[in-house]
Every structure is written in structure tokens, then in C-alpha cells.
């Protein structure tokens, strides 16, 4: 799945930046420092916005394109922030044959965002994930730690509404 670059404004704090600088300093002279620094940067910011990738490139003295190349290669790295509620739709084989593709489409429609994106109000983000090991409940999605199984697309608006009000 192609990653979506967030269009939301960068909201990093000076504290986060100080932490990132510490991380860069720690790994500066390690060969292949880009990956561990990206991991820790994602822990700090929750995702990897342009500004953060540029700081990493500058700090490690590598081309920003190299940082971006690594960030887009590994699925663990996110270029878009996670919302207050992260909705994860399982596209593993069992869920997929039971129609989780339609679930994802319905969510896209309801939320007005594509997979790997976050709503402008920061409330919801949408992820397509691999098998989460709940095949008996297929098709499955999770909202943060809540699991919804044997889903039909008609249930989607209600579920979203529940979190909007929460």
C-alpha cells in the first residue's frame, strides 16, 4: 500500500525536538543510523512528518531522499499521524474473503479519508492492516483496543458515531 503524506500542519513541540536531537546525537556515528533514529523519532512524534525527516537528514548528514526512502520502504513507519481513534481494518486473507475490502471502502466514504490518512480534526485515522489473528470473527476491525467482529457495512456509521460522541 502506498503511503500517504500528511497534509496536516506540523505541530512538533520544542520538547520533542530536544528529544529528537538527543536521539540523533546518540546514533550519529553508527553505520546505518537512519533506521533506528526513524524508529525513535516515530516514538517521539507518533509519525514521521517532513520536518522531522529533514531534521534527521540534517543531523545525520545524509540526503533527505535516503531518509524518505527508508521511511517509505518499511511498513512500520507512518507518514501520517494517528488520530485519537485509530481504526484498523484487517485485510488478511480470511477477513478479505469475508468482505473486509467493502468495510474499508465504507469507512473511507464515511470519514472522507483514504487508508493511511488522518481526519483534519485529528479524531480518526484509518489503517489497513495484516491478519490480527481473529479470523474466527472475520471480517474484523479494531478501534484502538476495541475489537469489532463479523462486521457488516451497515454497522459502520453507528460505530463511528459512538466515538464521535465519546
Amino acid at each position, binding site marked *: 500500500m*502506498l503511503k500517504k503524506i500528511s497534509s496536516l500542519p506540523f505541530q512538533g513541540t520544542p520538547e520533542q525536538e530536544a528529544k529528537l536531537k538527543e536521539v540523533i546525537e546518540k546514533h550519529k556515528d553508527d553505520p546505518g543510523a537512519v533506521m533506528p533514529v526513524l524508529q525513535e523519532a516515530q516514538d517521539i512524534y507518533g509519525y514521521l512528518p517532513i520536518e522531522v525527516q529533514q531534521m534527521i537528514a540534517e543531523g545525520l548528514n545524509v*540526503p*533527505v531522499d535516503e531518509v524518505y*526512502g527508508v521511511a517509505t*520502504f518499511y*511498513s512500520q513507519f507512518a507518514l501520517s499521524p494517528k488520530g485519537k481513534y485509530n481504526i484498523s481494518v484487517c485485510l488478511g486473507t480470511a477477513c478479505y474473503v469475508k468482505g473486509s475490502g467493502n468495510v474499508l471502502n465504507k469507512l473511507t466514504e464515511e470519514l472522507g479519508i483514504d487508508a493511511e490518512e488522518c481526519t483534519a480534526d485529528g479524531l480518526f485515522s484509518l489503517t489497513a492492516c495484516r491478519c490480527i489473528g481473529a479470523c474466527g470473527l472475520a471480517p474484523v476491525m479494531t478501534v484502538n483496543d476495541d475489537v469489532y467482529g463479523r462486521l457488516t457495512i451497515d454497522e459502520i456509521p453507528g460505530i463511528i458515531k459512538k466515538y464521535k460522541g465519546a
Partner: protein
Amino acid sequence: MEMLNIKINGRDYTVEKNTTILEACHKFGIKIPTLCYLKDINEIGACRMCLCEVKGARSLVAACVYPIDREGTEIFTNTPQIRENRKTTLELLLSNHDKKCLSCPRSDNCELQTLCLEYGVDEQKFVGAETHYDEDVSTLHLVRNNNKCILCRRCVAACNEQFVGVIGAINRGFDTAIGCAFDKPLGEVSCVSCGQCTVVCPTGALVEKDNTAEVFKAIADPTKHVVVHTAPSIRATLGECFGMPIGTNVTGKMVSALKLLGFDKVFDTNFGADLTIMEEGTEFIQRVQNGGVLPMITSCSPGWVKFCEHYYPDLIPHLSTCKSPQQMQGAMIKSYYAEKAGIDPKDIVVVSVMPCVAKKFEIKRDDQGRDGMQDNDISITTRELAKMIKTAGIQFTDLPDDQFDSLMGIGSGAGTIFGATGGVMEAALRTVADVLTGEDLKQIDYKEVRGTDGIKEATYEVAGMTVKVAVCSGLKNAAVVLDKVRAGEADYQFIEIMCCPGGCVNGGGQPIQPGHVRNFVDLKALRAKALYEDDLNLPYRKSHDNPEIKAIYDEYLGKPGSHLAHELLHTSYVARKKNFV
């Protein structure tokens, strides 16, 4: 040195231990196909075209990175299995390739196309999903068409080798593409326009912006007076586009071809190079005598200048204020020549033929040109000129020799060697030494600054003054020297920097030689040799001896560094941002 006895295709050979299969085979006259391999800079074994069989190995091996390290190694390069394997690899590459060969600028000079022919592929063997990319036309100098990209990463290696690194592989698997960070177009990142990516691309994924249609249009317009001038290195490379050996000097045929194409005047940028030396030499002497910023760094190479602006903006005061030879020539055509010929400069179209794609950017820079007119209107590469000659049906190799038109048609040997790394330095020293001593010195070969080494240093005694110089080509090498200057650790007075490795003879606009030639032939040295021979054979070997240069100062500019010279021949630079612009 340990030697090993090996067998290739059943025949006995002896090779040095750890020679790769590819190198060994080349040595013994066996050609192994490659697509991704570029000696020293892209040895990644990724494209799988060079697969060979080593007896006892579990699977086929990549010849480009497989070192022969055992006595008695038996290698096969041409079995039915290997041929079938390579053919399938090509067919898989074609399954996600636009296959529009008929209109491709690299048709006839495409490494993928050549191999497909050699292996007799079926281009429809694997039909399935194809990715579609929009062309990136955001820069003035090149076009990226990822629909033709085979992901060999040669361009990425070339860009990294230049210490620019604005392109790389992004995304993963079927979605992998070569592009810039955050999917920005090339025009929005700190690309220096050197075009080294275009000369290493095996396909038509990276090509120069083609400006030949504008040139043909200008020539066909009866109200326009179209003047062309050709850079020093073009004479040493243009022949390659017509199958002539690398390093053939084709000055005479080139001039004939330009006249046949219908240009109204054909001038030599060597004249502009000589003019640059007059101005730059004078600037250097003034900086030394008046306590100006030293070391002074040459400014002929627009890729280097842009690199300095993006990556070393703090060193801009070190850049000579002289325009490049291209720009000086253009400026003089639209002033001095226009006046002499009695033509309104607005009716003149100046076309430059350059070894360079960054020149397409340079002609549109700020603080060049005058009265809203550019110094040069159109800049085309060696490759584009060859294309025009072919389109016009001119049989290049059969042409008689002709001579440049007078007024700006004489260039000295000093001008001609501008095309090779070290040439500008040597040319400047020839003039500076004469000016400072007031003599006509006979010892004018500054051999220490010649050759294809990336960084050269020398110290000369010039009129009792010690001048320490450095010459670098390739931005990776430039960065080494610039870091020293930045740290205050360099004691040079004068530095020549050329953006492209080896200088203009290996510029981003030069004829494209396929990987199997680039990897085993020193293009830079062969092409440069033609220029140094030209230097030896020319009647004038110092810029200030060039009679047309003398005339332009006597009749028009006054003295080097005069007010008018400054107005027409000098420029300024701007600090630019790194990464995103």
C-alpha cells in the same frame, strides 16, 4: 599477487585472485550483458542480467559482483539456461515498461532495447498491471519519465557520487520508483542540474529537455539572425554520435555541419573561454594584490555554481564574479558583434552548443543578459546537435572541414583545454604568469594540473609569488576541498572546480556511451587527450595572444576588468536552500 587457473566456457585462463567474473570475461573478450552495473559507483548485482553459472554453486551468480577466489573455478557464460534466464529477466522488465520505442529519445541508444534485440524477447510475454507515472518536466534541464525506468539505480549512484543525492528509491515492491523525497518534482529540490544522471541512464527515463525544435524554428525565421557557438569540448565528443572513435577531434566537420544547418554565423566558444581568462586572470591578480577574498574559485561550471549556492552558500564570496564562457560569448555577440554587423540585438538569436544540461539553467539565471535580453537564447547539448544534424540529413562523417567565422572564431589552446579538468587553471596560469612577469614565457605546460584525478594540487612560483592551486572535478571531490576552505585549513590561492567528473568532456550533455563502454574505457582521458592535442597544434596557446581577444579589448571593452567589461562579463550569485527550494 595470487594468480588462479580457471576455465571459462571450457577454455583455460589465468586471472588474478578476486577478479570479478565480469572483469575477467571482459579481459578475455567475452561480453556479459549488464544493466545496473557501473564500475565503482553502482556495484549492486541487482538487475540479474549478468547471471552466469559457476560449477558447484547453488544457483546462477551475478558476474558483476562475484569474485573468483578459488583455483580451478569453472564458469559458464552462455548456456541455454543462462540465455533463457536473461531473456525472462528482460521480459519481466518489459512487463512494467511503456515500450514506446518509436518515439523514445533514446531509441537506437538504449541498453534495454539492445539487449531485448540480442535475446529475442517477446515484449507481451507477461501482461498485467502497469504503473503509470506522469513525466516530471519541472526543471529547465531534464525530463524524468519513470514509465521507462528499470530501477537500476545508476542515476541514484551518479547523484550520490555528486554529493547531491536528491533522487533515490522510494516506496516498496511494485510501487518502487526513483524520485525525490516527499514525491517532490525535481524542480523543487536542490538538484544542481549537472545531468550526470542522464548520461548513466540505460534507457529513456532521464533525458535532457530537447530544445532543438526552437533552434530549427529560429533558423527558419527570416527575421532572425541566428548565431551559434560551440563549447571547447564539443569538438572532442560530437564524432561519437556518428560512430567515430572516442577522442576524435571533429572541429572542421562540426563547423561544416553547423553552416549546412543554416546558422548565419558560427563562432567558437573557445573565444569566450579566452575572454574568461582575461577577466578571471585580472580578477585573480587584483584579489591577490588588494587583499580580496582568497582562495578564488572558478565559476565556469553552472552545476558547480548551483551546488555552491545550495550547499556552500557561505563560500559564495570565493566564487569569481566572471560569467562563464557561454555567457561571455553570448553577451559579446549581442553587443560587440551586433554593433559591428549593424544588427539590432533583439533580432539576434544566440544558440550555444554545450557539453552540459546545467547550461540550460544558466542562460535563464538572474543577473545575466542585458535590457531584458538573455545573453544566450537557447542552449543545446552535444546530443541535441547530433540529433539536428541527423534530422537535416547531413552525412557528418563525409563532410569537408570548414572554419569558424571571424570576429569570435579564433580560440587559443588555452581556451580549448577548458573542456578538461585542470584546463581553466592551466589557461589562467599561462596568462597570469605573462602579465605579472611582463614576459612571453615559453614554459607554459602546467602538467601537474592535468589528468583525470578528482583532486590535484600544485604550487607554482609566478613572478616571485608562490601560488598554491587546487583543481577538483566531480562534486564529491569538490566537497573535500570546500570543507577544508570552510574550516580555514586550506592555503590555496586559486581553485578550479568542475561539476562533472573529469570536467566538461564528461559533462551531462555529452554523447551517451553504454555501461559496457563506460565501465572499461576511460572516457574522460580519451576525450581530454583530443583537447590537449588540439592545444599543441593551435597557432596561439595563450588567451592574451589571441588576436581577436586583443581586438575586442582595443576596439570595445578597453581593459580587462573595465567598467564595460564588468557590466557585460561579470555576474552575481544567490544563496539557495538545501533540500527543498
